[in-house]
């Protein structure tokens, strides 16, 4: 995983998100969850100094479920604290994240803020999403040959390009990532219009 992050950073990617664990994953067997939690904890601890040294800002999306072990939650907080002033690439780890849940929270937040129905437009709505500074997603790489969205950042992937390499996530390496990136660069993104826009440009 860390070499993918490294590859993305050196290729000039500014926003990288990893989908580690979804809200629905809690339905998996307990042992598997325990194993996953320990794995994540090990990864966080192992790579924290490198992430910090590389100027990568780390964030965790979701990660508020009380079922997350206390210690792991502390490690998430520590990693965020450690890297919060970094200005290099932003690495968002979607942990216990669900795209629909995000949209529901945005709706709640809008209602709480007392925004009138007529005043709600896309930009306004997006501003109430958790971590609103996340830009729209340009490219989603779904490994393991699966071809589903799986409730991932539903709002942000509206105009994303999708690539479905068949390689399994544990085997996914920097070279695979660069292949996907190459593939993406050759695509023609139109955002529903006819004029192609340069990839990565803002398009609101």
């Amino acid at each position, binding site marked *: 995983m860390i070499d993918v992050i490294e590859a993305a950073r050196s290729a000039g990617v500014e926003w990288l998100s990893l989908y580690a664990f979804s809200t629905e994953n809690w339905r998996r067997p307990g042992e598997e969850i325990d194993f996953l939690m320990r794995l994540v904890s090990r990864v966080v601890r192992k790579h924290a*100094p490198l992430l910090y040294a590389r100027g990568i800002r780390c964030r965790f999306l979701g990660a508020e479920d009380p079922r997350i072990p*206390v210690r792991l939650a502390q490690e998430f907080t520590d990693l965020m604290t*450690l890297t919060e002033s970094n200005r290099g690439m932003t690495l968002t780890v979607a942990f216990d994240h669900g795209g629909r849940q995000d949209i529901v929270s945005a709706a709640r937040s809008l209602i709480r803020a007392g925004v009138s129905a007529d005043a709600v437009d896309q930009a306004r709505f997006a501003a109430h999403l958790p971590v609103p500074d996340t830009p729209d997603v340009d490219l989603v790489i779904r490994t393991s040959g699966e071809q589903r969205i799986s409730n991932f950042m539903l709002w942000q992937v509206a105009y994303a390009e999708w690539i479905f390499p068949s390689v399994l996530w544990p085997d996914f390496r920097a070279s695979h990532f660069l292949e996907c990136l190459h593939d993406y660069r050759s695509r023609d993104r139109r955002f529903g219009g006819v004029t192609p826009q340069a990839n990565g440009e803002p398009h609101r």
Partner: protein
Amino acid sequence: MKDTDSSRFTRTGPDATGPYDDPEPTGPPGDPGREASGTPTEFLFGPGSQFHRFFNDPRWALAVVRATVLEAAHPQIGAALADNSSFVVHPWRRLSNTLVSLQRMFGADEHTRQREAARLNRLHTRLSGTDARNRPYDAMDPEVRAWVVATLFESSVTMCRLSGQPLDQITMERLYAEFQAFLAALGDEAGHLPPTLHEFWKYYDRMVAEELQNTEALRIILFKLFEHLPAPPLFAGLPTVWATGRALAGPVIGTITVASLPEVFRRRAGLPEVPGAQTLMQGAYVTARLARALPDNWIRTENFVSLLQLSPDGDGPCAEALTTLRARVKRAGALIRLITPVPAQQDGTGGTENRRSARVFFTEVLDQTGDGYLDWPDLAAMARELCSRLDLDEPEETRLYDAFAAWWRELQAALDSDGDGRVSEEEYAAAAPSLAGPALIRVAEVLFGVTDADGDQFIDAEEYRVLFRRGFGRSVVDAEGRYSRSAFVRDFLSFMSGRQRSTSYDPLLADA
């Protein structure tokens, strides 16, 4: 009341001659001539006084710790401390209150002094009771108060001697006169401190040899406080950093303090003799003396006090620099935690959330004395802290205490299920959800009343700052920028019974 040890209440005035005809070398060479009480007050207090010279002396920190230990060794004071004092859990708050109080008492302004003396007297009037063996103690007992002043004086003298700069006779007598005047300013009639320095040493030696004991409070200070010293607010949230420093410094401070106590007492109380401790102790005093060469404003006690009162996300002159510094330290703390090996595998998933936070609230906020039980002294300590913050006079002070007392009765009635007169952590955790009774609401109302100094039914920014030492948060004020009674009561209740973390109340009641 079966063994009210009457010998402890005998007068130890000037004519109490102890069995010591050969005082320690510290004693004066028989020159009782100078009449101290004749010196006018303005020379005894204020910037020209001897005390004032010591107040900004780094050695004084060591001396005050030593004096506190000697006070705690007095059976009556020890009992009062063990019962009432929140210093184990909130030592920094206590230290900063003490320093501010001494500053007022020894300052140049007579009015401030009288007001502070009255406040101290009211505070001490509320501290009385009986110890574990049913012997009464009373913080207003003039003997007791004389001993407190005596330890402060003696520790100042000893601090100079230990750091290789003994005071000359004239300075020492002058200092003694100042401390006598301090006791007199508290309103105690003369006679409890011996009139002359010569007699003082006899009195002191006799107290050390006969009255002092290895009290519980003494053991708590020496062996518990230093090694478990909670982080001051500035370091809150950085437990790793604090614990590392404390693990090194805690035992050293304890050892230094023990080594500086009178030999007679160390032997009698069975305090440990650590090889090299004497050298270490003298080294510490000498180092502290040399620290006086540091730039003046580094070592000013006022600055130290304001540092103690700072909490990181407050506001104030140096808040910005402090926030930056703290952010760095926080990052360092996070990194240390992340790279240190995981202790043992104990992945408790935070299931019983409500119950656990009730326990945390009990330890962090309610149990001010840190004895594991909620009892009147805990709530009295809260009332005391609020009164000090708001600098209350009568009758407001009594109103606040009364409100807290009523709340205590309410808590006791509702929670003390085993009827032992106090509330244990389990009893509190079991009943925690149902806890905002009328008496607690009354506490909130009274607190609002005394905080609202101008009585306009709103707390303005100035009044808010007096209580919380910070500006308004975004969330507390209404459209006109004021804090209303209902909002105040609601916030107080959500802190006290809803156990919500609060940027206002946590520094006030939970910080060390």
